[in-house]
Protein backbone atom coordinates (compact mmCIF):
# COMPACT_ATOMS: atom_id res chain seq x y z
CA UNK A 1 0.00 0.00 0.00
CA UNK A 2 2.61 2.57 0.91
CA UNK A 3 5.62 3.17 -1.25
CA UNK A 4 8.46 4.34 0.93
CA UNK A 5 9.73 7.77 0.02
CA UNK A 6 13.32 8.36 0.96
CA UNK A 7 13.82 11.95 2.00
CA UNK A 8 17.03 12.21 4.00
CA UNK A 9 16.69 15.78 5.31
CA UNK A 10 13.04 16.73 5.70
CA UNK A 11 12.27 20.27 6.81
CA UNK A 12 10.71 20.26 10.27
CA UNK A 13 6.99 19.68 10.10
CA UNK A 14 6.84 18.58 6.45
CA UNK A 15 5.93 14.93 6.35
CA UNK A 16 5.47 12.53 3.50
CA UNK A 17 5.20 8.88 4.29
CA UNK A 18 4.05 7.58 0.96
CA UNK A 19 0.65 7.37 -0.63
CA UNK A 20 -2.28 5.89 1.27
CA UNK A 21 -5.10 4.27 -0.64
CA UNK A 22 -8.32 4.01 1.35
CA UNK A 23 -9.86 1.34 -0.86
CA UNK A 24 -6.91 -1.01 -0.31
CA UNK A 25 -6.94 -0.24 3.40
CA UNK A 26 -10.63 -1.11 3.67
CA UNK A 27 -10.15 -4.31 1.69
CA UNK A 28 -7.37 -5.39 4.04
CA UNK A 29 -9.35 -4.93 7.26
CA UNK A 30 -10.18 -8.00 9.27
CA UNK A 31 -13.42 -8.33 11.22
CA UNK A 32 -11.84 -9.47 14.52
CA UNK A 33 -8.47 -10.26 16.03
CA UNK A 34 -7.24 -13.83 15.59
CA UNK A 35 -5.87 -16.05 18.34
CA UNK A 36 -2.25 -15.55 17.24
CA UNK A 37 -2.75 -11.76 17.28
CA UNK A 38 -4.31 -11.94 20.72
CA UNK A 39 -1.37 -13.88 22.11
CA UNK A 40 1.26 -11.65 20.52
CA UNK A 41 -0.56 -8.49 21.63
CA UNK A 42 -0.76 -9.85 25.18
CA UNK A 43 2.96 -10.52 25.14
CA UNK A 44 3.59 -7.00 23.84
CA UNK A 45 1.55 -5.56 26.68
CA UNK A 46 3.55 -7.73 29.06
CA UNK A 47 6.76 -6.34 27.54
CA UNK A 48 5.45 -2.85 28.18
CA UNK A 49 4.67 -3.70 31.80
CA UNK A 50 8.14 -5.19 32.31
CA UNK A 51 9.74 -2.02 30.90
CA UNK A 52 7.71 0.01 33.36
CA UNK A 53 8.78 -2.24 36.24
CA UNK A 54 12.43 -1.85 35.34
CA UNK A 55 12.07 1.91 35.23
CA UNK A 56 10.16 2.11 38.52
CA UNK A 57 12.03 -0.33 40.75
CA UNK A 58 10.19 0.93 43.83
CA UNK A 59 7.32 -1.25 42.55
CA UNK A 60 9.32 -4.20 43.84
CA UNK A 61 9.37 -3.04 47.46
CA UNK A 62 6.31 -5.07 48.39
CA UNK A 63 7.41 -8.31 46.78
CA UNK A 64 10.86 -8.00 48.33
CA UNK A 65 10.11 -6.62 51.77
CA UNK A 66 6.96 -8.51 52.59
CA UNK A 67 8.44 -12.01 52.32
CA UNK A 68 11.50 -11.03 54.33
CA UNK A 69 9.62 -9.16 57.06
CA UNK A 70 6.58 -11.41 57.41
CA UNK A 71 8.56 -14.64 57.42
CA UNK A 72 10.85 -13.45 60.21
CA UNK A 73 8.07 -11.75 62.18
CA UNK A 74 5.57 -14.62 62.09
CA UNK A 75 8.24 -17.22 62.74
CA UNK A 76 9.61 -15.57 65.85
CA UNK A 77 6.28 -14.28 67.20
CA UNK A 78 4.06 -17.36 66.70
CA UNK A 79 6.62 -20.15 66.37
CA UNK A 80 6.88 -20.92 70.06
CA UNK A 81 3.15 -20.62 70.73
CA UNK A 82 1.93 -22.72 67.82
CA UNK A 83 4.61 -25.36 67.28
CA UNK A 84 6.72 -25.23 70.41
CA UNK A 85 9.69 -23.67 68.67
CA UNK A 86 10.52 -21.61 65.59
CA UNK A 87 12.15 -24.41 63.63
CA UNK A 88 9.24 -26.81 63.75
CA UNK A 89 6.79 -23.97 62.88
CA UNK A 90 8.61 -23.18 59.61
CA UNK A 91 7.27 -26.11 57.50
CA UNK A 92 3.76 -24.94 58.47
CA UNK A 93 4.46 -21.24 58.11
CA UNK A 94 6.53 -20.85 54.92
CA UNK A 95 3.83 -22.16 52.52
CA UNK A 96 1.34 -19.89 54.34
CA UNK A 97 3.52 -16.83 53.83
CA UNK A 98 4.00 -17.79 50.17
CA UNK A 99 0.24 -17.86 49.67
CA UNK A 100 -0.20 -14.59 51.51
CA UNK A 101 2.48 -12.67 49.61
CA UNK A 102 1.27 -13.99 46.28
CA UNK A 103 -2.26 -12.82 47.12
CA UNK A 104 -1.04 -9.37 48.15
CA UNK A 105 0.83 -9.17 44.88
CA UNK A 106 -2.41 -9.97 43.03
CA UNK A 107 -4.04 -7.04 44.71
CA UNK A 108 -1.27 -4.76 43.50
CA UNK A 109 -1.97 -6.02 39.98
CA UNK A 110 -5.53 -4.72 40.19
CA UNK A 111 -4.56 -1.40 41.75
CA UNK A 112 -1.87 -0.74 39.17
CA UNK A 113 -4.15 -1.67 36.30
CA UNK A 114 -6.66 0.88 37.56
CA UNK A 115 -3.97 3.58 37.76
CA UNK A 116 -2.76 2.67 34.31
CA UNK A 117 -6.26 2.73 32.84
CA UNK A 118 -6.76 6.30 33.97
CA UNK A 119 -3.87 7.42 31.76
CA UNK A 120 -4.36 8.73 28.25
CA UNK A 121 -2.43 5.91 26.68
CA UNK A 122 -5.24 3.47 27.52
CA UNK A 123 -7.54 5.43 25.26
CA UNK A 124 -5.07 4.81 22.49
CA UNK A 125 -5.03 1.10 23.25
CA UNK A 126 -8.82 1.17 22.95
CA UNK A 127 -8.65 3.00 19.65
CA UNK A 128 -6.33 0.36 18.18
CA UNK A 129 -7.49 -2.75 16.36
CA UNK A 130 -6.23 -5.01 19.14
CA UNK A 131 -7.76 -7.77 21.24
CA UNK A 132 -9.64 -6.27 24.16
CA UNK A 133 -8.20 -8.80 26.57
CA UNK A 134 -4.55 -7.92 25.79
CA UNK A 135 -4.27 -4.72 27.87
CA UNK A 136 -5.59 -6.71 30.86
CA UNK A 137 -3.79 -9.99 30.39
CA UNK A 138 -0.48 -8.36 29.43
CA UNK A 139 0.33 -6.67 32.75
CA UNK A 140 -0.91 -9.76 34.60
CA UNK A 141 1.49 -11.92 32.67
CA UNK A 142 4.35 -9.55 33.45
CA UNK A 143 3.41 -9.86 37.10
CA UNK A 144 4.53 -13.48 36.94
CA UNK A 145 7.95 -11.96 37.62
CA UNK A 146 6.63 -10.43 40.83
CA UNK A 147 5.05 -13.70 41.98
CA UNK A 148 8.31 -15.46 41.22
CA UNK A 149 10.30 -12.98 43.31
CA UNK A 150 7.79 -13.06 46.17
CA UNK A 151 7.54 -16.86 46.34
CA UNK A 152 11.27 -17.52 45.90
CA UNK A 153 12.32 -14.93 48.47
CA UNK A 154 9.97 -16.42 51.04
CA UNK A 155 11.60 -19.82 50.63
CA UNK A 156 15.08 -18.26 50.73
CA UNK A 157 14.24 -16.36 53.89
CA UNK A 158 12.82 -19.54 55.40
CA UNK A 159 15.99 -21.45 54.64
CA UNK A 160 18.06 -18.64 56.16
CA UNK A 161 16.23 -18.92 59.49
CA UNK A 162 16.41 -22.71 59.57
CA UNK A 163 13.72 -24.15 57.26
CA UNK A 164 14.80 -27.39 55.55
CA UNK A 165 12.12 -28.33 52.97
CA UNK A 166 11.73 -32.10 52.89
CA UNK A 167 10.50 -32.04 49.28
CA UNK A 168 13.94 -31.02 48.06
CA UNK A 169 14.64 -28.63 45.21
CA UNK A 170 12.06 -30.25 42.94
CA UNK A 171 9.34 -29.99 45.57
CA UNK A 172 10.12 -26.33 46.24
CA UNK A 173 10.21 -25.50 42.51
CA UNK A 174 6.84 -27.24 42.14
CA UNK A 175 5.45 -25.26 45.06
CA UNK A 176 6.69 -21.99 43.57
CA UNK A 177 5.25 -22.85 40.16
CA UNK A 178 1.87 -23.67 41.68
CA UNK A 179 1.91 -20.40 43.65
CA UNK A 180 2.67 -18.40 40.52
CA UNK A 181 -0.15 -20.06 38.60
CA UNK A 182 -2.54 -19.44 41.48
CA UNK A 183 -1.41 -15.83 41.73
CA UNK A 184 -1.98 -15.28 38.03
CA UNK A 185 -5.45 -16.82 38.24
CA UNK A 186 -6.59 -15.01 41.37
CA UNK A 187 -5.29 -11.76 39.86
CA UNK A 188 -8.26 -11.89 37.46
CA UNK A 189 -10.53 -11.15 40.45
CA UNK A 190 -8.55 -8.04 41.28
CA UNK A 191 -8.31 -7.08 37.62
CA UNK A 192 -12.08 -7.17 37.53
CA UNK A 193 -12.16 -4.89 40.57
CA UNK A 194 -9.76 -2.66 38.66
CA UNK A 195 -12.16 -2.37 35.74
CA UNK A 196 -15.27 -1.67 37.84
CA UNK A 197 -13.92 0.56 40.61
CA UNK A 198 -13.96 4.33 40.38
CA UNK A 199 -10.29 4.79 41.19
CA UNK A 200 -7.17 3.02 42.36
CA UNK A 201 -7.86 3.71 46.03
CA UNK A 202 -11.24 2.01 45.95
CA UNK A 203 -9.67 -1.02 44.28
CA UNK A 204 -7.28 -1.18 47.21
CA UNK A 205 -10.07 -0.89 49.79
CA UNK A 206 -12.24 -3.48 48.09
CA UNK A 207 -9.32 -5.87 47.67
CA UNK A 208 -8.28 -5.62 51.32
CA UNK A 209 -11.74 -6.70 52.38
CA UNK A 210 -11.42 -9.84 50.29
CA UNK A 211 -7.78 -10.47 50.99
CA UNK A 212 -7.73 -10.52 54.78
CA UNK A 213 -10.54 -13.03 55.34
CA UNK A 214 -9.16 -15.25 52.58
CA UNK A 215 -5.65 -15.41 54.04
CA UNK A 216 -6.34 -15.36 57.76
CA UNK A 217 -9.43 -17.58 57.64
CA UNK A 218 -7.33 -20.34 56.15
CA UNK A 219 -4.79 -22.85 57.37
CA UNK A 220 -1.99 -20.47 56.29
CA UNK A 221 -0.69 -19.70 59.76
CA UNK A 222 -2.35 -22.17 62.13
CA UNK A 223 -3.41 -25.83 61.78
CA UNK A 224 -7.13 -25.98 60.91
CA UNK A 225 -7.70 -28.50 63.74
CA UNK A 226 -7.20 -25.74 66.32
CA UNK A 227 -10.16 -23.71 65.03
CA UNK A 228 -13.81 -23.69 66.23
CA UNK A 229 -16.05 -25.94 64.13
CA UNK A 230 -17.93 -23.28 62.05
CA UNK A 231 -14.73 -21.54 61.13
CA UNK A 232 -13.06 -24.86 60.39
CA UNK A 233 -15.71 -25.59 57.74
CA UNK A 234 -15.00 -22.30 55.98
CA UNK A 235 -11.26 -22.86 56.23
CA UNK A 236 -11.68 -26.26 54.58
CA UNK A 237 -13.43 -24.87 51.48
CA UNK A 238 -11.31 -21.73 51.26
CA UNK A 239 -9.26 -22.11 48.06
CA UNK A 240 -6.32 -20.50 49.80
CA UNK A 241 -6.28 -23.43 52.22
CA UNK A 242 -5.98 -25.77 49.25
CA UNK A 243 -3.09 -23.73 47.90
CA UNK A 244 -1.38 -23.76 51.29
CA UNK A 245 -1.89 -27.50 51.75
CA UNK A 246 -0.73 -28.23 48.22
CA UNK A 247 2.35 -26.05 48.71
CA UNK A 248 3.11 -27.85 51.98
CA UNK A 249 2.74 -31.24 50.35
CA UNK A 250 5.05 -30.24 47.54
CA UNK A 251 7.69 -28.38 49.52
CA UNK A 252 7.76 -30.49 52.67
CA UNK A 253 7.12 -33.96 51.25
CA UNK A 254 7.69 -33.66 47.52
CA UNK A 255 4.22 -35.17 47.14
CA UNK A 256 1.83 -34.38 44.31
CA UNK A 257 -1.44 -34.78 46.22
CA UNK A 258 -5.11 -34.18 45.50
CA UNK A 259 -4.73 -30.73 47.05
CA UNK A 260 -2.73 -29.71 43.99
CA UNK A 261 -5.64 -30.83 41.81
CA UNK A 262 -8.15 -28.89 43.90
CA UNK A 263 -5.99 -25.78 43.70
CA UNK A 264 -5.63 -25.97 39.93
CA UNK A 265 -9.35 -26.63 39.56
CA UNK A 266 -10.35 -23.60 41.67
CA UNK A 267 -7.89 -21.47 39.72
CA UNK A 268 -9.48 -22.53 36.44
CA UNK A 269 -12.93 -21.71 37.82
CA UNK A 270 -11.72 -18.26 38.90
CA UNK A 271 -10.28 -17.58 35.42
CA UNK A 272 -13.41 -18.85 33.68
CA UNK A 273 -15.58 -16.49 35.73
CA UNK A 274 -13.48 -13.38 36.14
CA UNK A 275 -11.59 -13.13 32.85
CA UNK A 276 -14.80 -12.68 30.80
CA UNK A 277 -16.24 -10.35 33.47
CA UNK A 278 -13.10 -8.20 33.32
CA UNK A 279 -13.05 -7.99 29.55
CA UNK A 280 -16.73 -7.13 29.45
CA UNK A 281 -16.42 -4.35 31.97
CA UNK A 282 -13.22 -3.05 30.34
CA UNK A 283 -15.02 -2.92 27.02
CA UNK A 284 -17.93 -1.07 28.53
CA UNK A 285 -15.60 1.25 30.42
CA UNK A 286 -15.07 3.33 27.33
Amino acid at each position, binding site marked *: *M*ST*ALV*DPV*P*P*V*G*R*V*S*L*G*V*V*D*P*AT*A*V*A*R*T*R*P*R*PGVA*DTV*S*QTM*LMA*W*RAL*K*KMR*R*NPEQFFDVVLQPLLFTAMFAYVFGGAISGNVRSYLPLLIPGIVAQTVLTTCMVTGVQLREDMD*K*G*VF*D*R*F*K*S*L*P*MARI*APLAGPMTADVVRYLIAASLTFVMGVVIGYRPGGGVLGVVGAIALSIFTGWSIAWIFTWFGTIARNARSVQGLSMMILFPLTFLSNAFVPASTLPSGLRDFVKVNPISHLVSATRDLANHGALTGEVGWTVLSCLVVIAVFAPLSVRSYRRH*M
Partner: protein
Amino acid sequence: MTTTTAAVDAAGLVKEFGTLRAVDSIDLHVRQGEIFGVLGPNGAGKTTMLKMLATLLPIDAGQARVFGVDVAGEPHRVRQLLGVTGQYASVDEDLTAAENLWLFGRLQGLRSGEARATARRLLGQFSLQDAADKPLAQFSGGMRRRLDLAVSLIARPPLIFLDEPTTGLDPRTRGEMYDTIRGLVADGCTVLLTTQYLDEADQLADRIAVIDRGRKVAEGTPDELKTSVGNSTLQLRLAPGADAGLARRVVRRVTGAEPVLAALSGQLNVPLDAADQAAEVLVGLREAGLEIASVSVAKPTLDEVFLAITGHDTGEAGAAEALETDESLLEMK
Protein backbone atom coordinates in the same frame (compact mmCIF):
# COMPACT_ATOMS: atom_id res chain seq x y z
CA MET B 1 -16.14 0.25 -2.58
CA THR B 2 -15.94 3.16 -4.98
CA THR B 3 -13.92 6.34 -4.69
CA THR B 4 -17.10 8.22 -3.88
CA THR B 5 -17.55 6.45 -0.54
CA ALA B 6 -17.43 9.08 2.18
CA ALA B 7 -14.56 8.90 4.66
CA VAL B 8 -17.07 9.60 7.40
CA ASP B 9 -20.80 9.40 6.96
CA ALA B 10 -22.77 9.95 10.13
CA ALA B 11 -26.47 10.52 10.54
CA GLY B 12 -28.35 11.58 13.64
CA LEU B 13 -25.52 10.89 16.09
CA VAL B 14 -26.63 11.14 19.70
CA LYS B 15 -24.68 10.82 22.94
CA GLU B 16 -26.35 11.36 26.28
CA PHE B 17 -24.65 11.74 29.64
CA GLY B 18 -27.50 11.49 32.11
CA THR B 19 -29.92 14.23 31.12
CA LEU B 20 -27.39 16.13 29.02
CA ARG B 21 -27.37 15.57 25.29
CA ALA B 22 -23.67 16.08 24.68
CA VAL B 23 -24.15 15.27 21.02
CA ASP B 24 -27.62 15.94 19.71
CA SER B 25 -28.51 14.46 16.29
CA ILE B 26 -25.44 15.48 14.39
CA ASP B 27 -25.06 14.62 10.71
CA LEU B 28 -21.56 14.63 9.34
CA HIS B 29 -20.31 13.95 5.86
CA VAL B 30 -16.56 14.01 5.33
CA ARG B 31 -15.35 13.41 1.78
CA GLN B 32 -12.24 11.43 1.01
CA GLY B 33 -9.06 13.47 0.81
CA GLU B 34 -10.34 16.61 2.49
CA ILE B 35 -9.53 18.33 5.76
CA PHE B 36 -12.78 18.70 7.61
CA GLY B 37 -12.83 21.04 10.58
CA VAL B 38 -15.21 20.77 13.51
CA LEU B 39 -15.34 24.17 15.15
CA GLY B 40 -16.85 24.93 18.51
CA PRO B 41 -16.15 26.18 22.01
CA ASN B 42 -15.09 24.00 24.92
CA GLY B 43 -17.79 21.54 25.85
CA ALA B 44 -19.71 21.89 22.58
CA GLY B 45 -19.49 18.14 22.07
CA LYS B 46 -16.65 17.99 19.54
CA THR B 47 -14.52 15.52 21.48
CA THR B 48 -17.52 13.37 22.38
CA MET B 49 -18.49 13.16 18.74
CA LEU B 50 -14.95 12.24 17.71
CA LYS B 51 -14.77 9.58 20.43
CA MET B 52 -17.98 7.99 19.16
CA LEU B 53 -16.67 7.90 15.60
CA ALA B 54 -13.39 6.42 16.88
CA THR B 55 -15.27 3.59 18.70
CA LEU B 56 -14.12 4.97 22.07
CA LEU B 57 -17.67 5.78 23.16
CA PRO B 58 -20.80 3.80 22.35
CA ILE B 59 -23.21 5.56 19.99
CA ASP B 60 -26.55 6.11 21.75
CA ALA B 61 -28.56 6.75 18.59
CA GLY B 62 -27.97 7.34 14.92
CA GLN B 63 -25.37 5.62 12.86
CA ALA B 64 -21.93 6.23 11.47
CA ARG B 65 -19.86 4.71 8.72
CA VAL B 66 -16.14 5.06 8.10
CA PHE B 67 -15.27 4.32 4.47
CA GLY B 68 -18.55 2.46 4.36
CA VAL B 69 -17.81 0.31 7.43
CA ASP B 70 -20.38 0.53 10.21
CA VAL B 71 -18.80 1.98 13.37
CA ALA B 72 -21.14 0.31 15.87
CA GLY B 73 -21.38 -2.99 14.00
CA GLU B 74 -17.74 -3.59 13.05
CA PRO B 75 -15.63 -1.54 15.44
CA HIS B 76 -12.57 -3.74 14.96
CA ARG B 77 -12.50 -3.02 11.23
CA VAL B 78 -13.11 0.69 11.80
CA ARG B 79 -10.16 0.81 14.19
CA GLN B 80 -7.94 -0.46 11.38
CA LEU B 81 -8.85 2.56 9.27
CA LEU B 82 -8.33 5.24 11.90
CA GLY B 83 -5.51 7.08 13.55
CA VAL B 84 -6.55 9.07 16.59
CA THR B 85 -4.56 11.91 18.08
CA GLY B 86 -5.82 14.05 20.87
CA GLN B 87 -5.22 15.02 24.42
CA TYR B 88 -6.91 11.78 25.43
CA ALA B 89 -5.30 9.27 23.11
CA SER B 90 -1.71 9.90 24.00
CA VAL B 91 1.52 7.96 24.25
CA ASP B 92 3.08 5.92 27.03
CA GLU B 93 4.92 8.13 29.50
CA ASP B 94 7.15 5.34 30.75
CA LEU B 95 8.52 4.41 27.34
CA THR B 96 10.88 6.34 25.08
CA ALA B 97 9.73 7.79 21.76
CA ALA B 98 11.32 4.93 19.81
CA GLU B 99 9.79 2.31 22.13
CA ASN B 100 6.35 3.90 21.80
CA LEU B 101 6.50 3.78 18.04
CA TRP B 102 7.82 0.24 18.04
CA LEU B 103 5.11 -0.95 20.48
CA PHE B 104 2.26 0.67 18.59
CA GLY B 105 3.63 -0.62 15.29
CA ARG B 106 3.86 -4.15 16.66
CA LEU B 107 0.39 -3.95 18.21
CA GLN B 108 -0.96 -3.17 14.76
CA GLY B 109 0.61 -6.17 13.14
CA LEU B 110 4.03 -4.97 11.96
CA ARG B 111 6.86 -7.43 12.45
CA SER B 112 9.60 -6.39 14.85
CA GLY B 113 12.09 -5.33 12.15
CA GLU B 114 9.39 -3.55 10.15
CA ALA B 115 8.20 -1.74 13.26
CA ARG B 116 11.75 -0.63 14.06
CA ALA B 117 12.33 0.61 10.52
CA THR B 118 9.01 2.47 10.41
CA ALA B 119 9.70 3.96 13.82
CA ARG B 120 13.08 5.22 12.64
CA ARG B 121 11.55 6.68 9.49
CA LEU B 122 8.79 8.44 11.42
CA LEU B 123 11.23 9.79 14.00
CA GLY B 124 13.24 11.22 11.11
CA GLN B 125 10.22 12.68 9.36
CA PHE B 126 9.08 14.33 12.57
CA SER B 127 12.59 15.53 13.45
CA LEU B 128 12.61 13.53 16.65
CA GLN B 129 15.59 11.28 15.89
CA ASP B 130 17.80 13.04 18.47
CA ALA B 131 15.18 12.50 21.16
CA ALA B 132 14.39 8.92 20.16
CA ASP B 133 15.76 7.33 23.32
CA LYS B 134 15.06 10.11 25.80
CA PRO B 135 12.38 9.87 28.47
CA LEU B 136 9.15 11.60 27.46
CA ALA B 137 9.35 13.83 30.50
CA GLN B 138 12.05 15.78 28.68
CA PHE B 139 9.86 16.44 25.64
CA SER B 140 8.48 19.89 24.87
CA GLY B 141 4.79 20.32 24.10
CA GLY B 142 5.49 20.48 20.38
CA MET B 143 7.62 17.33 20.47
CA ARG B 144 4.92 15.51 22.41
CA ARG B 145 2.32 16.49 19.85
CA ARG B 146 4.56 15.37 16.99
CA LEU B 147 5.18 12.03 18.66
CA ASP B 148 1.44 11.61 19.31
CA LEU B 149 0.78 12.18 15.64
CA ALA B 150 3.64 9.93 14.53
CA VAL B 151 2.23 7.11 16.67
CA SER B 152 -1.19 7.56 15.05
CA LEU B 153 0.38 7.28 11.61
CA ILE B 154 2.45 4.16 12.12
CA ALA B 155 -0.10 1.84 10.55
CA ARG B 156 -0.77 4.37 7.76
CA PRO B 157 -4.50 4.76 8.41
CA PRO B 158 -6.43 6.48 5.62
CA LEU B 159 -8.46 8.57 8.10
CA ILE B 160 -6.90 10.65 10.85
CA PHE B 161 -8.73 12.28 13.74
CA LEU B 162 -6.97 15.23 15.30
CA ASP B 163 -8.56 16.54 18.46
CA GLU B 164 -7.40 20.13 18.93
CA PRO B 165 -4.00 19.39 17.42
CA THR B 166 -2.45 22.79 18.16
CA THR B 167 -3.97 23.79 21.50
CA GLY B 168 -1.14 24.99 23.70
CA LEU B 169 1.46 25.16 20.93
CA ASP B 170 3.50 28.28 20.15
CA PRO B 171 2.91 29.94 16.75
CA ARG B 172 5.99 28.46 15.07
CA THR B 173 5.20 24.91 16.18
CA ARG B 174 1.60 25.50 15.20
CA GLY B 175 2.70 26.43 11.68
CA GLU B 176 4.78 23.24 11.48
CA MET B 177 1.79 21.20 12.55
CA TYR B 178 -0.26 22.79 9.76
CA ASP B 179 2.41 21.78 7.24
CA THR B 180 2.41 18.25 8.60
CA ILE B 181 -1.35 17.97 8.33
CA ARG B 182 -1.32 19.25 4.75
CA GLY B 183 1.39 16.69 3.94
CA LEU B 184 -0.86 13.89 5.19
CA VAL B 185 -3.67 14.94 2.90
CA ALA B 186 -1.24 15.17 -0.01
CA ASP B 187 -0.49 11.49 0.65
CA GLY B 188 -4.14 10.61 0.26
CA CYS B 189 -5.29 10.70 3.88
CA THR B 190 -8.48 12.29 5.06
CA VAL B 191 -8.29 14.48 8.17
CA LEU B 192 -11.07 15.26 10.60
CA LEU B 193 -9.93 17.84 13.11
CA THR B 194 -11.55 19.76 15.92
CA THR B 195 -10.55 23.23 16.91
CA GLN B 196 -11.64 26.20 18.95
CA TYR B 197 -10.02 28.66 16.58
CA LEU B 198 -11.75 29.93 13.47
CA ASP B 199 -8.36 31.03 12.20
CA GLU B 200 -7.05 27.47 12.40
CA ALA B 201 -10.07 25.98 10.66
CA ASP B 202 -9.75 28.76 8.09
CA GLN B 203 -6.10 27.96 7.33
CA LEU B 204 -6.49 24.19 7.23
CA ALA B 205 -9.98 23.02 6.54
CA ASP B 206 -11.68 22.57 3.22
CA ARG B 207 -15.01 22.52 4.98
CA ILE B 208 -16.11 23.37 8.49
CA ALA B 209 -18.98 22.30 10.69
CA VAL B 210 -19.80 24.59 13.60
CA ILE B 211 -20.96 22.75 16.70
CA ASP B 212 -22.79 24.38 19.55
CA ARG B 213 -24.27 22.64 22.60
CA GLY B 214 -24.13 19.29 20.86
CA ARG B 215 -25.83 20.49 17.68
CA LYS B 216 -24.45 21.32 14.28
CA VAL B 217 -25.42 24.94 13.70
CA ALA B 218 -23.63 25.63 10.44
CA GLU B 219 -21.58 23.95 7.78
CA GLY B 220 -19.67 25.27 4.81
CA THR B 221 -16.33 26.36 3.46
CA PRO B 222 -14.32 28.79 5.59
CA ASP B 223 -15.18 31.56 3.15
CA GLU B 224 -18.89 30.89 3.39
CA LEU B 225 -18.73 30.98 7.16
CA LYS B 226 -16.72 34.14 7.29
CA THR B 227 -18.94 35.90 4.84
CA SER B 228 -21.74 35.43 7.32
CA VAL B 229 -19.83 37.68 9.72
CA GLY B 230 -17.78 39.84 7.34
CA ASN B 231 -14.10 39.60 6.68
CA SER B 232 -13.17 41.74 9.64
CA THR B 233 -14.93 43.42 12.49
CA LEU B 234 -14.85 46.99 13.68
CA GLN B 235 -15.20 47.08 17.44
CA LEU B 236 -16.53 50.39 18.74
CA ARG B 237 -17.15 51.66 22.20
CA LEU B 238 -19.27 54.82 22.27
CA ALA B 239 -18.56 57.55 24.76
CA PRO B 240 -20.95 57.53 27.76
CA GLY B 241 -24.23 59.13 26.87
CA ALA B 242 -23.86 58.74 23.10
CA ASP B 243 -26.99 57.65 21.24
CA ALA B 244 -26.54 53.94 20.47
CA GLY B 245 -29.64 53.87 18.29
CA LEU B 246 -28.32 56.67 16.11
CA ALA B 247 -24.96 54.90 15.89
CA ARG B 248 -26.67 51.75 14.66
CA ARG B 249 -28.53 53.66 11.97
CA VAL B 250 -25.31 55.32 10.81
CA VAL B 251 -23.52 51.98 10.63
CA ARG B 252 -26.38 50.40 8.73
CA ARG B 253 -26.41 53.27 6.23
CA VAL B 254 -22.64 53.15 5.64
CA THR B 255 -22.02 49.39 5.56
CA GLY B 256 -25.42 48.01 4.77
CA ALA B 257 -24.90 45.47 7.57
CA GLU B 258 -26.50 45.17 10.97
CA PRO B 259 -24.11 45.95 13.87
CA VAL B 260 -24.22 43.67 16.87
CA LEU B 261 -24.35 45.12 20.35
CA ALA B 262 -22.37 42.91 22.73
CA ALA B 263 -24.47 42.84 25.85
CA LEU B 264 -21.71 42.41 28.39
CA SER B 265 -19.15 44.91 27.15
CA GLY B 266 -21.52 47.44 25.64
CA GLN B 267 -19.35 47.19 22.57
CA LEU B 268 -20.71 47.66 19.08
CA ASN B 269 -19.36 45.08 16.63
CA VAL B 270 -19.62 46.07 12.97
CA PRO B 271 -18.99 43.35 10.37
CA LEU B 272 -16.92 44.67 7.48
CA ASP B 273 -16.35 43.22 4.03
CA ALA B 274 -13.07 45.09 3.79
CA ALA B 275 -10.96 46.71 6.47
CA ASP B 276 -11.01 50.14 4.76
CA GLN B 277 -14.75 50.37 5.40
CA ALA B 278 -13.73 51.12 8.96
CA ALA B 279 -12.71 54.66 7.98
CA GLU B 280 -16.08 55.28 6.33
CA VAL B 281 -17.92 54.15 9.43
CA LEU B 282 -15.80 56.38 11.65
CA VAL B 283 -16.31 59.37 9.38
CA GLY B 284 -20.03 58.68 9.33
CA LEU B 285 -20.16 58.61 13.12
CA ARG B 286 -18.11 61.82 13.40
CA GLU B 287 -20.49 63.58 10.97
CA ALA B 288 -23.45 62.43 13.05
CA GLY B 289 -21.78 64.03 16.08
CA LEU B 290 -21.27 60.72 17.94
CA GLU B 291 -18.31 60.53 20.29
CA ILE B 292 -16.27 57.32 20.39
CA ALA B 293 -14.40 56.06 23.47
CA SER B 294 -12.34 53.35 21.80
CA VAL B 295 -12.04 51.64 18.46
CA SER B 296 -10.27 48.63 17.01
CA VAL B 297 -10.40 46.42 13.94
CA ALA B 298 -10.17 42.66 14.38
CA LYS B 299 -10.54 39.54 12.31
CA PRO B 300 -13.77 37.74 12.99
CA THR B 301 -13.41 35.41 15.92
CA LEU B 302 -15.20 32.21 16.75
CA ASP B 303 -17.33 34.33 19.08
CA GLU B 304 -18.58 36.43 16.21
CA VAL B 305 -19.28 33.47 13.99
CA PHE B 306 -21.21 32.06 16.88
CA LEU B 307 -23.03 35.23 17.59
CA ALA B 308 -23.96 35.55 13.95
CA ILE B 309 -25.08 31.95 13.61
CA THR B 310 -26.63 31.15 16.96
CA GLY B 311 -27.55 34.56 18.33
CA HIS B 312 -25.63 33.90 21.55
CA ASP B 313 -21.94 34.11 22.27
CA THR B 314 -19.66 31.20 23.14
CA GLY B 315 -19.70 32.20 26.79
CA GLU B 316 -23.31 31.11 27.03
CA ALA B 317 -22.34 27.73 25.69
CA GLY B 318 -20.40 27.49 28.94
CA ALA B 319 -23.61 26.34 30.58
CA ALA B 320 -23.44 23.14 28.58
CA GLU B 321 -19.74 22.98 29.26
CA ALA B 322 -20.24 22.99 33.01
CA LEU B 323 -22.48 19.95 32.76
CA GLU B 324 -20.11 18.22 30.44
CA THR B 325 -17.32 18.37 32.97
CA ASP B 326 -15.61 15.17 31.93
CA GLU B 327 -15.10 16.28 28.42
CA SER B 328 -14.20 19.88 29.13
CA LEU B 329 -11.64 18.79 31.69
CA LEU B 330 -10.05 16.60 29.07
CA GLU B 331 -10.16 19.37 26.56
CA MET B 332 -8.62 21.86 28.95
CA LYS B 333 -5.74 19.65 29.88
